[in-house]
Each structure stands twice: as structure tokens, then as C-alpha cells.
């Protein structure tokens, strides 16, 4: 049933592949759960932005009963790799539950992988060398992706998951039975890699902990960003631009505790001429951010949507070389490559706007006690 994947002509696991794409993010800011059908409909409208070599989704709020545990979505080439990865996971975690990720047969999707999910609880003794539980998870993900050949961690956050593969996103969504899941944030991605074949792990979203990133563009500063990240212990092993974005948000937001807005201003830094015109205290802050975090500046054309359990953010590069449109309707926030992708699921939004270059669109959860009762 499982093919040997090494027969593929150019597996992009070993190369950094520039790609064009379509992206969508939909969030309900009061955590109302809605089915994956909405986002499938939205991303399907932008079919032309992809070429059938990659599609994927991230969904938040899908495992309410198991929300205490780290949900690992894994991609294996075969059972041997599965065993090796599981042995490694067992050294560090208690596997509370595990099962095959439910799929249905879809003729457009040529399934070649063993897809498995785990709900994990860190072991006390495994935590000793790490500062936090999250650092243990990050290290585990990096280890598996870098050292266990044929095993790949698609996602590793709590109460969320990434579903991706090679195919058009609507077919991938159908394959993973996403219509049966309900979440409050959904991201989707339609990929147009500029090489002959896609690897399932190379599809977006890219995730680490509960971060998920979808990305349209090419990050020309990849080499600089990778080296910047290496000095903070991140190992870029996947040769995708998107990988650096996920690690950079993890670094700034989770580890340094910066707000998403400040993080966005590091990625798409204001021009020096803008900084010159700022009031003195602000000028000092932005001068310092650019001076110290020059290696984290994202250069080249991009439109990205980043999410975690608390928020969703859309961001363009400093000169807006890729499309990104935002809209809101009640508690719903929509961000997409094209306005049509929003209007197909929300025909009359209250507000539609095109974010300026480097200006983030940030949707944060509205915290209300009764909303918590949803669980």
C-alpha cells in the first residue's frame, strides 16, 4: 500500500524550492467553531494559484477532548520509520492516544504515506535539560525532521493540527475529511512549486508547536535568516522559506515575548527614512530593532498568514510584492490572496481592505468568560 518514496524524480526535501501560491486564513474571534468546508470552498476558488503539487490546511480547536496534550501529526514513508520515530517519542513522552489520521479515498490524491497522529504528554525526566515543555517539543520536532529519515512532523501543537499533501487543496481537504472537523481558526494553502514533484512534507502550512504558517512568495533573505536562527539553536532542515518564518515567530513571540505587531515590524521593518521621521523614543526603538535584528528582516516578495491558538496575523513584505486582502464580518476575520476567495464564503463583508506594505493585519481572540463554555 505504501510506495517507496525515494523513486520520485526530485524529492524537494533536499532542495529549497521557490514557489508561488494562494493563501487563506479565516478566524472567528470568539472561538466559535465552524467546519472545514468553508475554507475548502474559499481556497478552491483560487485553484489557478496552484499547480496541484501541494495543498494543506491548519485547524485550531479541533481536539477539544485532548487539548491538554501535544498533538503530533506525522508523515511516514513506511512502518520501519514509524517504529523508529515512535521509539524516540516514547523516550520523551507518554503516548496518551494514537491512531491513523482518518482519510477517505480520493482519486486525485495519490497517497503514498503513512499518516499517523499522537497525543503526547512530556515525561518529567525528559524535561530536565530544557527550559520549558515547549523547548522539549521544539527539540523533538527538530530531531525527527533532521535525523529520522522518512519521518516528518507536520504539526506539534495542542488542540490543533496540520493536514497537507501533494494535490490540489480541495482534494487534500476531501482526502483528510476536513468537513468532519470544526475549528475557530483555519488556514489553507494552494501551492505552485517551481519544480517537477512535491514532497508531502514540503506542502504548507508549516508548523511548530501551535504555530502554523502559510506563505506565498520567496524569501530572498533565507540564507541570512537561517544563520540568524542557528545562533538561537534552530536547525533549518527542510529547505523551505516558510520554515524560517515559523521559527522566527516562535523566537520573537514565544521566547522573547514580543507582541505580534512588534514581530511584524521586525520582519517587515520600516524604511530608514520612515524611522528618521518618528518621534524620538519610537525612533530609538525601531533603530535598535533594525540594528540588532537585521538578520531577521524578511526580504523578497511575500504574503504570509501566521496563526497560533490565540491569534492570526497577515503580513506583506516591505514593498508589497504579493497580494493580500483582508475582510471582516462580525467576529469573523478573513485574510486571503484574493478578494474573490473571501467573497465566495462571505459575499457581503462589513469591511474589505488591502493591507499596506509591511502593515500587519492582526486578529486576536476576544476574551469573554462565557466563550470558554464552548468546551
Amino acid at each position, binding site marked *: 500500500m505504501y510506495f517507496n518514496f525515494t523513486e520520485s524524480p526530485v524529492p524537494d526535501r533536499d532542495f529549497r524550492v521557490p514557489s508561488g501560491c494562494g493563501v487563506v486564513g479565516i478566524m472567528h474571534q470568539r472561538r466559535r467553531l465552524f467546519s472545514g468546508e468553508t475554507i475548502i470552498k474559499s481556497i478552491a476558488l483560487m485553484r489557478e494559484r496552484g499547480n496541484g503539487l501541494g495543498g494543506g490546511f491548519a485547524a485550531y480547536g479541533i481536539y477539544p477532548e485532548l487539548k491538554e496534550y501535544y498533538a503530533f501529526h506525522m508523515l511516514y514513508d513506511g512502518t520501519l520509520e514509524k517504529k523508529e520515530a515512535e521509539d524516540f517519542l516514547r523516550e520523551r513522552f507518554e503516548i496518551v492516544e494514537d491512531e491513523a489520521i482518518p482519510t477517505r479515498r480520493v482519486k486525485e490524491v495519490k497517497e503514498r504515506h503513512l499518516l499517523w497522529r499522537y497525543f503526547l504528554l512530556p515525561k518529567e525526566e525528559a524535561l530536565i535539560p530544557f527550559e520549558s515543555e515547549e523547548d522539549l517539543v521544539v527539540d523533538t520536532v527538530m530531531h525527527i525532521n533532521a535525523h529520522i529519515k522518512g519521518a516528518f512532523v507536520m504539526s506539534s501543537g495542542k488542540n490543533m493540527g496540520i493536514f497537507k499533501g501533494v494535490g490540489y487543496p480541495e482534494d487534500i481537504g476531501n482526502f483528510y475529511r476536513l468537513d468532519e472537523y470544526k475549528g475557530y481558526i483555519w488556514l489553507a494553502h494552494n501551492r505552485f512549486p517551481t519544480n517537477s514533484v512535491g514532497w508531502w512534507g514540503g506542502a504548507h502550512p508549516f508548523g511548530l508547536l501551535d504555530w502554523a504558517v502559510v506563505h506565498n512568495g520567496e524569501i530572498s533573505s533565507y540564507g541570512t535568516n537561517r544563520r540568524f536562527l542557528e545562533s538561537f539553536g534552530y536547525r533549518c532542515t527542510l529547505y523551505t522559506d516558510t520554515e524560517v518564518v515559523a521559527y522566527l515567530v516562535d523566537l520573537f513571540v514565544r521566547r522573547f515575548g514580543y507582541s505580534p505587531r512588534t514581530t511584524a515590524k521586525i520582519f517587515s521593518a520600516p524604511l530608514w527614512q520612515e524611522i528618521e521621521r518618528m518621534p524620538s523614543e519610537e525612533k530609538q526603538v525601531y533603530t535598535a530593532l533594525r540594528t540588532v535584528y537585521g538578520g531577521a528582516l524578511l*526580504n523578497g516578495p511575500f504574503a504570509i498568514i501566521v496563526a497560533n491558538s490565540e491569534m492570526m496575523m497577515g503580513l506583506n513584505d516591505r514593498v508589497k510584492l504579493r497580494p493580500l486582502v483582508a475582510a471582516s464580518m462580525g467576529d469573523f476575520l478573513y485574510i486571503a490572496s484574493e478578494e474573490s476567495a473571501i467573497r465566495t464564503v462571505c459575499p457581503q463583508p462589513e469591511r474589505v481592505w488591502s493591507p499596506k506594505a509591511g502593515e500587519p493585519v492582526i486578529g486576536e481572540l476576544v476574551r469573554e468568560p462565557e466563550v470558554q463554555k464552548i468546551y
Partner: protein
Amino acid sequence: MAKRRSTADFVLERDDYKCIRCLACVRVCSYGANFYDERENMVFTENRKCVGCHFCEAICPTEAIVVQHNPLAIRWNAHWTSEVVTDIMKQAETGGVLLTSMGNDKPYFTYFDRMVLNASQVTNPSIDPLREPMEIRTFIGKKPLSLELEESEGSVALKTQIAPQLKLEVPIMFSAMSYGSISLNASKSLAKAAQTVGTYFNTGEGGLHKDLKEFGENMIVQCASGRFGVNVDYLNAGAAVEIKIGQGAKPGIGGHLPGEKVTEPISETRMIPVGTDAISPAPHHDIYSIEDLRQLIYAIKEATRYKKPVGVKIAAVHNVAPIASGIVRAGADFVVIDGIRGGTGATPKVTRDNVGIPIELAIAVVDKRLRDEGIRHLASIIVAGGIRKSSDVIKAIALGADAVYIGTAALVALGCHLCQKCYMGKCNWGIATQDPKLVRRLNPEIGARRAANLLRAWALEIKEILGGMGINAIESLRGNRDVLRGVGLQEHELEILGIKPAGEAW
């Protein structure tokens, strides 16, 4: 045996039909190569005296003069070249060390010429620098690993104090050339150009002439082994202090300014008596190890009240990476690495031509080493030694440098023709001389304009290339070795440079 006269390196051909006997060439040549025979009414040249500086050729009003290499100075031999034979003859006669100037002129591999750059095609739009902002501002100095911020509703405040930084509008500075090795007019030209463009020049180790004090904001003062002119006012006169341990043109040795050159003004800036030799010892006699260097760095930081970055300059030698690491750990805010092509006013030829390593390799290993140790942010890397053009700057930065120093290129902009005779102090172009008649030939206003033009031109070219790569800020080029590919390099060299061979994709 018959005493063999050394062969002329150059042949000066004068078109007698064009020559109007104005005798300008006779008057200008500081080496006395041209002379006039009144009886014959002819101008002649004693070819052996010609150093090939092309000054007479440049000023001849009728273009009657052409200076050429002597095509067959010595019988051709691939092994016993004319240079080798001439050198042996000179040494047989004098029994001394051969002196020379400027940088290594031997055909060692130039790695810059074996690395090619990337550009955007289709998947990534290139950016037109004429339409879009293109930023090349650079900061030199110690950076914290991370910043502590205090964020509240919509406002951000900075909690971390950042160490003093040098702000460069172009990532290029003028490297250390002392008043003494070059003329005051040359120093003034570079100082003024640095001020115009928004970058820095370096005093070298000769102390500070009073005319240069006004350029303090764009000046780096140097403290070398001779400690000439070093006092607390000097250290505080510039924007940064550089401790010079070594120099690319002469790693491992010191310097010697002969007493004849220590004129009144030189004596004043160097703070030594007129007519005494100015000797810079090979080592600093208070630095025999890395912990001594740390003491000097902090002594200077104390003297400058921690308001100025303090850097250390070394020559690129085999062990450059661990040495640089030690310097950073000793507290330096920037490290200057000078490669085997680095220039000088005077050096033993044997040292210049044989000691040190190419700067490209040094940048790659130092940047990697500092990153591997997690201390790259603690110091900026400035590289020097044979940076010839804007593409060299781009490649150096892509390999991991923060900025570059140019010396030779700056002097060429002022008129230098690389005759390599600076040590004689007779520079016809008014650059490497203290002779008032010759110094006058270099107008500091014009010199400043030319040096500033060079930086402006390189800055435009750098922006052009960045835009082509789809990058609009130089920080995204720094250490981005992905934009480099090697052509015709061996596997191990590619590995040291940390780049892939051309033809290999990401």
C-alpha cells in the same frame, strides 16, 4: 666581474615630432628620470630611473609620452623571471632586505573572481533601485543578542541599553593610512570624502594632525605598537578607536619611518623629536597574549568612558578564526581582518608577497567560527585587503562581513598609479610623500570629490545588484552565502567558503 647595471623595468617612448620641449616632464619627475640636452635640443629619459607612475605621461600637453613595460628586461624564463633576477642583483649589491610598497602583486588566486552572484527570475521580482527604496545603511559595533522591550497598548519602549555604534551610510570605510605614510592633502581628501558620504576614515598610527580634528565625527583613531601621538585627547578625538595588531601587507612585523622623514609637522603629530626614527615594534610590548589585549581594550574603553566602539585589527593568517574569536571574547566591538592583498607604505617584499591568507577565505572562516560559538553579535567584522570594486564589497558582505575598508582603491581615486614606490617618499601624485612641492599637486577639494564619487558609484552599483536579487536592505545580504556560487573552485575550497558550486540550485 663586470658590474651589471640593473635593467630598466619601463621604457619611456617620446614622440619627437609631438614634443614641444616645454620640459614639463623634466620638471615634474621627482625621480629625475627625464632630462633635457640643450646642445641637441632634445628631451631624454634615463629609463632605469622611471618607476612607471605615469605622471609625466598624464601632464604632457601634447601626449608625446608613452610609458611602457620593458618587453624584455631580462631573457624570458618561466622560473627565473625578470623580477627574480633583478632582485638577486640588487641584493648581491646591497646585502639588504628588499623594500616595496602597496599590496601583494603576485598572481595568487583571487577568490572574488571565482564567485558569481544570483539574480531574481520569475519566482521573485527584481526590485528597481530607481523606483524603490534600497537601503545600505550599516551599523558597526557590539549588539545584544536580544532586546528587552516593554510593550503596552500600542506603544513600545526599549529597556536594553545598546553599546555605541558607528553609523555608515555606505558599508565602505577608508582604511588606516597614517599622516606620514601619506600626505596631509591625501588625509584631508579622505576625511572630507568620509564626511560627505557619511562614513569613516582612519588616522593610521601616525597621530592626529590638527587640521584633521574637525573631521572627528567621521574618524577612527588608531593605536598601534609605536603608540605615536596616543594620549587621552587623541583617543577621544574620533568616533571609534582601533588597536592595530597586524596588517595584511606585513603580518608579524612592525614599521619604520626613517628619521629623514620626521619633519617638523610629523614630529608634532607623532610626538617624537625631529629627525629621530619612528619605529613601530613588531608586537605591542604590552601585549604578549590575549589577556593583555583585553586589558588594553578596557583601558581604552575606560579612557573613552565607554562611549566609543573599540576594535582590533589583525592580518589574516592561518589561525585567523580562533584569533578573531579570542579578540571578540576579549571585548572588542569590531574586528578588522586584513588579507594578503592589503597595502602599505613600506614593507619587506618577502613578507608582502608570501605571508598571510586571501581575505575571502578569512571572512568565511571567521564569520563561521563566531557564529558557531554564538558570539557573532558581540562584534562587527570589517574586512580589508585588496577590495577593488563594488562586486568585491557585495561578495565580502555575502560571505559574512559587516563592512569593508578600502585603502589602495581610495588612493587610486586620488591619482595613485600603483608604482609601489611609496617607501621612497617621492610620490609624483602628491599622495605618499611629505615633499611640499609634491604634496601641492594633490588638491584636497578635488581629492575629496573624487574619493566621494568612488563611494557614491559603488553604492549605486551595490543597490543595482541588491535590487536584481530582489533584496532591498543590505542586512538581508549579510552572511547570505546562498547568493554566491563558486566557479572553478575545488570542493574543499567551496566548503571553506561555505558556498555551492555554480549549477547547483538551492
